[in-house]
């Protein structure tokens, strides 16, 4: 690294330079101080470094001829959205608000859709009836339900039959009308053939 490095018999040029610039770890500083006191080459090099850096520092800092300052300008100002987006606290608060609103809306919708019927006092009713009565009630309810179902099915079948019958009748009428038209056309054609209205037809 250094041309003078090779001239260091102790081989501690790098550590010496680090020491001179206060970059040596604290635990090695004391050891290096002792080494400099004992090693003539390192002591000489250390003195040269101090003299050189002292000489360099005689060049003073110059005052800046014109102070630098900035004025607020919309071009450089972050937009409101950017400021909001960059603000973690505000964004967190906004997220919490959105979540709260979503929960409220969800809860309201569930209350509108779901109307649980009041609970039947099954146990109370069951306690006041005997098993036979319960069985009879069930049988009655089943029979009633079946009767209602049969009635509904009967009504539906009757409706379908009625609709099919009407459809059939309509089709028959249309067929009859078509047949009449065809018969009239055939009769007309025969009459005209008999009257020899088609001279080329016999050739």
């Amino acid at each position, binding site marked *: 690294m250094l041309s003078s490095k090779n001239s260091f018999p102790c081989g501690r040029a790098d550590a010496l*330079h680090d020491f001179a610039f206060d970059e040596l770890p604290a635990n090695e500083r004391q050891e290096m101080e002792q080494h400099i006191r004992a090693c003539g080459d390192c002591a000489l090099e250390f003195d040269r470094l101090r003299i050189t850096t002292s000489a360099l520092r005689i060049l003073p800092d110059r005052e800046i001829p014109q102070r630098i300052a900035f004025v607020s300008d919309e071009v450089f100002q972050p937009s409101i959205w950017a400021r909001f987006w960059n603000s973690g606290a505000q964004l967190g608060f906004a997220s919490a608000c959105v979540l709260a609103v979503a929960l409220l809306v969800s809860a309201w919708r569930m209350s509108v859709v779901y109307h649980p019927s009041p609970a039947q006092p099954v146990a109370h009713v069951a306690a006041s009836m005997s098993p036979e009565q319960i069985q009879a009630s069930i049988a009655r309810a089943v029979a009633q339900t079946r009767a209602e179902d049969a009635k509904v099915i009967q009504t539906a079948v009757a409706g379908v039959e009625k609709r099919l019958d009407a459809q059939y009748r309509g089709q028959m009428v249309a067929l009859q009308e078509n047949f009449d038209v065809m018969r009239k056309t055939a009769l007309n054609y025969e009459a005209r053939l008999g009257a020899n209205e088609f001279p080329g037809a016999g050739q």
Partner: protein
Amino acid sequence: MIFRAVEDTDLISRVCRGDVEAYNLLVSRWEKRVFNYILRLTANQEDALDLSQDVFLKAYQNIRKLDDPARFGPWLYRIAHNEAYSLFRKRRPETVLEDLDADRNPAPGFSVDLSLAVAAALDRLNPEQREAVVLKVYEGFKFDEMAEILGCPVSTVKSRLYTALDLLKRDLAPVDSKRSHRGPAC
């Protein structure tokens, strides 16, 4: 009530919220150092002032990209380094140091020959060596900070610095010996 100094990190967080005045305060803390750093690289006062303004403008525009506000100094100097080298690339190498002697006045209180000798010795270094000396001796950065600013390994930084100091020792030795023979110059 407990008083504490407003740290750069406090100012940076305020700047990130759009506080321009906080940024002006931050600029006032760093402008002289940045100006002198660039001046020692470019050796031209006008360039140094223009580049300093550009540096602080870029820093303001990109301050939200600064990951660690505690590393504002090296980050700012990295921008300054890039700006200075952009200028070097735009110009021919020989024009970089053309106004050197005009802008480097001798330090008051020291002998003229020593100041000029130091300035001349610095100018004889190549730009990379000079920048290493400036960052270490004048700006007082640690090696890891210098590596961050220069964008190179610490070993490279040390190599440049120690080579530069070796050259400076040789250049400045006669002046020191002359000065010691003549006694104090002021």
